């Protein structure tokens, strides 16, 4: 269970360091708690399961805990620096309770961390979901401050920010398009994931690059103890994961795949889609190897793609990410992580008709090198510092039409290159028993690199000048200092107040070609014309656990101000337009709100109620005379109730109910005719609302067999139980029955959708 290594150093304070892992699989446990009993001294493991805690010489009783695992208590006589590797056993309960927020049950009262949502993937599986496809992004949308971008979508908004302001990291690699099938499913296969943490505010200095949030997703490392298979068969997809050691306790590998087969099933009942493919797949792979007690290598990768096509046309899009990491422990107080990352997102479109061909391709490619250090200087002082550099390649779009007579047409939106760097230092400091601070500074820079023809435009969008830059010439640079500060003041062991401030700089934006998101949306870098988005956010919160942490409560308020947001001129034409910059307008945004969360953490009934009251607005000089107008994602009320009840040892039921104010949209307020056709009259931008949204989902999980060598369960779920016709879109048209009259047409995507999934593990 424990491995001790003593070093005889004569001093009054000594450091205990090591890793906390799962006793069955050897998986490192992230953010597991280490607490000295009877005092406020403690720490948590980092993203790699490593911890370091310095204490006075003498006898100490330490408590190691992690949600879903049996806590462990041990007393040791500290006479020297000590290495201590702890293995925790999963709790004996078959059906895990649904626990979200904080890996330790309840709220970590004394931690400076606030405005975060942590989700243990294993425990989120009981939440009923659309078509039985477990989706970590959709589960997180049930928490305050996070809202879904549309019905059934894995896209999300955080605290009134834009969808492109969320930095989604999979094993530290950015994922530029986290959606499959136009947003109905996320690219994250839950079987391959270990831990997800979303920072809505108080974002640590080690993260940068997006204005609103950071979602840090960690893949499983692979079982270091024994080989095993996990899988599931659902209505529209199946999953299979293979993991095990290639050298016991030193190296392991995990391969996890998922593929949908909606097209295959549909072909069985109709011949209307013969010859048409429509599916997506994901493949996650990871290997790790402990080179020595102090060195460990991780190699992880993801590839996934959507494919839609037939004999004559094909449309596919997908992400590829790869991460190589080296963890090195210099000594019991200094931990280092070196990371090399590759990420790409691209889409392509091919059509053949006769001897003519149309090709369209677009993509973004990142090459990233990072170095992070954690220095556990003193029991009450930890220093984190690091540097990273990303080389971005933006390929906004290339279109070619090859025709029979050889008179080809090519449209090429020029490629852009940029170097983004970050340098940060942050301190975690405890002052006395009750006050904790986390303060840091990040210096980010962004350099546009040639070759590039930089254009300026006049008010009629005509090009007024073109300046050409050579290959590798830096033609524009931005610098931003991003202060980060979080503080926690504990009134006692059960209650605390926390506050945070952060500035975030974002050097790229997603340009949307239409009113809804699609794979053809285009990432573009900051340029001399497109300034980086800067977001300043302050948050204040009150946090409380009841005794034994059966219940926890939190209330948070936030105010976020965003500069240099992008919107479009009326009639903007973005798609494959080499002069798309001339079509943009720039302005500011503000978002503020209050988030309330009550959680029941233990017992047969667990779950939470989350409510957000918020406002999100924007202003652009060229839109509505510069008046503030609601952002599309402005949701006044957003309520989620999630509950799970354990009926029997092998049977549990769960349910979730959501309600939110409809999106802010622009509906016509009148009509007129031009050239014999009806044209609609619009007044205020986003001055109308989609109908309010609400939905109830129910689920039932029945464990069929739970032996040491074979586990299987079956999950039944029903999405939208009371068959509410929630509007996905509302469009306007002339009545077919009464020409001249106009009518609004609501498209509701999903009525009640039952599903069943069988999961197994051996």
């Amino acid at each position, binding site marked *: 269970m424990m491995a001790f290594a003593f070093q005889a150093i004569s001093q009054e304070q000594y450091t205990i360091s090591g890793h906390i892992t799962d006793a069955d699989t050897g998986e490192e446990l992230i953010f597991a708690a280490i607490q000295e009993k009877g005092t406020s001294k403690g720490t948590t493991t980092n993203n790699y399961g490593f911890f370091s805690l310095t204490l006075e010489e003498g006898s100490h009783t330490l408590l190691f805990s992690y949600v879903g695992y049996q806590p462990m208590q041990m007393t040791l006589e500290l006479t020297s620096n000590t290495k201590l590797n702890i293995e925790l056993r999963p709790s004996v309960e078959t059906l895990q309770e649904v626990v979200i927020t904080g890996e330790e049950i309840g709220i970590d009262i004394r931690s400076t961390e606030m405005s975060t949502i942590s989700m243990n993937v294993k425990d989120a599986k009981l939440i009923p979901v659309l*078509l039985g496809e477990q989706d970590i992004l959709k589960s997180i949308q049930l928490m305050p401050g996070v809202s879904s971008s549309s019905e059934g979508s894995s896209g999300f908004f955080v605290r009134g920010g834009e969808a492109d302001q969320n930095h989604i990291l999979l094993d530290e690699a950015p994922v530029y398009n986290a959606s499959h099938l136009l947003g109905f499913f996320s690219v994250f296969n839950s079987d391959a994931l270990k831990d997800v943490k979303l920072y809505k505010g108080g974002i640590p200095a080690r993260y940068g690059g997006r204005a609103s949030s950071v979602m840090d997703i960690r893949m499983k490392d692979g079982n270091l103890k024994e080989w095993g298979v996990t899988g599931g068969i659902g*209505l529209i997809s199946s999953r299979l994961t293979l993991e095990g050691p290639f050298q016991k306790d030193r190296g392991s590998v995990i391969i996890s795949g998922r593929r949908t087969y*909606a097209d295959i*099933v*549909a072909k*069985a*009942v*109709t011949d209307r889609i013969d010859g048409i493919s429509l599916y997506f797949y994901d493949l996650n792979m990871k290997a790790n190897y402990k080179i020595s007690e102090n060195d460990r290598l991780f190699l992880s990768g993801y590839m996934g793609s959507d494919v839609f096509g037939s004999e*004559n046309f094909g449309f596919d899009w997908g992400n590829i990410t790869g991460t190589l990491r080296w963890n090195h422990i210099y000594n019991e107080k200094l931990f280092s992580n070196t990371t090399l990352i590759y990420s790409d997102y691209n889409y392509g479109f091919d059509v053949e008709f*006769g001897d003519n061909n149309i090709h369209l391709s677009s993509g973004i490619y990142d090459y990233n090198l990072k170095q992070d250090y954690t220095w556990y200087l003193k029991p009450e002082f930890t220093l984190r510092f690091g540097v990273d550099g990303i080389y971005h390649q933006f390929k906004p779009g290339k279109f070619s039409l090859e025709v029979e007579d050889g008179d080809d047409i090519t449209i090429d939106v020029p490629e852009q290159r940029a170097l983004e760097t970050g340098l940060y230092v942050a301190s975690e400091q405890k002052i006395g028993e009750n006050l904790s601070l986390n303060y840091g500074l990040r210096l980010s820079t962004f350099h546009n690199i040639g070759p590039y023809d930089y254009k300026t435009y006049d008010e009629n969008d005509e090009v007024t000048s073109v300046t050409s830059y050579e290959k590798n010439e830096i033609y524009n640079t931005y610098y931003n200092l991003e202060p980060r500060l979080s503080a926690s003041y504990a009134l006692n062991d059960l209650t605390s107040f926390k506050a945070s401030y952060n500035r975030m700089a974002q050097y790229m934006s997603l340009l*949307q*070609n*239409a*009113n809804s998101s699609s794979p053809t949306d285009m990432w573009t870098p900051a340029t001399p014309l497109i300034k980086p988005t800067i977001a300043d956010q302050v948050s204040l919160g009150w946090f409380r656990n009841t005794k034994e942490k059966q219940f926890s409560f939190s209330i948070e308020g936030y105010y976020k101000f965003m500069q240099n947001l992008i*919107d*479009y001129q*009326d*009639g903007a*034409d*973005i798609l494959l337009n080499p002069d798309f910059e001339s079509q943009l307008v720039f302005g500011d945004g503000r978002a503020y709100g209050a988030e309330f969360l009550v959680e029941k953490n233990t017992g047969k009934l667990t779950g939470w109620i989350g409510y957000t009251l918020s406002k999100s607005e924007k202003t652009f000089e060229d839109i509505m005379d510069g008046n503030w107008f609601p952002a599309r994602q402005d949701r006044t009320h957003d309520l989620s109730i999630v509950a799970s009840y354990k009926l029997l040892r092998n049977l549990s039921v769960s349910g979730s109910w959501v309600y939110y104010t409809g999106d802010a949209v*622009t*509906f*016509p*307020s*009148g*009509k*007129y*005719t*031009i*050239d*014999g*056709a009806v*044209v*609609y*009259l*619009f*007044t205020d931008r986003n*001055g*109308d609302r989609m109908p309010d949204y609400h939905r109830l989902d129910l689920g039932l999980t029945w464990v069929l067999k739970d032996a040491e060598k074979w586990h299987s369960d079956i999950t039944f779920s029903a999405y939208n139980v009371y068959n509410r*016709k929630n*509007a996905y*879109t509302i*469009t*306007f*048209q002339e009545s077919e029955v*009464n020409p*001249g*009259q*106009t009518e*609004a*047409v*609501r*498209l*509701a*995507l*999903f*009525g*009640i959708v*039952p*599903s069943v999934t069988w999961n197994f593990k051996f």
Partner: protein
Amino acid sequence: MKKTIYLLSIILVSMILSSCEEVIILDLKTTDPRVVIEADLDGTTGPLEVSCSKTNDFYADSAFLPVSDAEVVLLYGKDDSQTVSETEPGIYIMEGFTVVPGSLYRIEVTIDDITYEAQAIAPNPAQILEVIIEPVEIQGPPPEIRFLGIGTAWLDIPDEENFYCLRMTVNNKLPGSKYLVNDTDQDGGLLLVTEIRDGLENGDSLQFQLSAINKEVYEYFQQVDDMGANGFSAAAPYNPIGNFSNDALGFFGVCFSNKKEVVIEE
């Protein structure tokens, strides 16, 4: 296993079919009516046709709310002007007017004591050179469906920026097709619009109207097209901006039109 697949298919299809479209009644905001003026001066046939209306509520029976008793004046030359008279509610027509290419024309429309002004320069006329109709083979649909490629060609007017609107109707049935064309990178060249259609039968007649139009009208029609049939194809819905003063909706344009009719034969 077959039974299982069948069951799965039934569930999947029922899910797919669970999406539904339904007409709903929305509580839409109403706004003060705005003036809409659509004024077309056609140099070929001479009439100036002006329709004056106000915007109507979304749920009103008609999209055209005519404005009578407007004062409509066409101004041209040095100080010449003619008043246009109302022929039916909201419609003002002046026949037999000669338009000179390259000349400036102004229009003043006074409604409720507010005068809305616009101006346009008459473009040079263009002629349809040829209409070609040929069968086209399309892979996929059943072979008994006949597809026809309909190509309309004309020569661009050289050494100037030109804008065109080509309309096509079948058996004079409105609204027909409308194409907006400019001569970017094709100055003085052969311009061609091709449409592929099925359902045309021998004896059907096709009417073509090629209009040389003003840039302002071209851009206005582009904005109307951009808003699409339901107003949601654009990144954000907006009101097309024309060339009238005082925030009137609509446009004033001067054009030269050229017509051709072709009957489909074997």
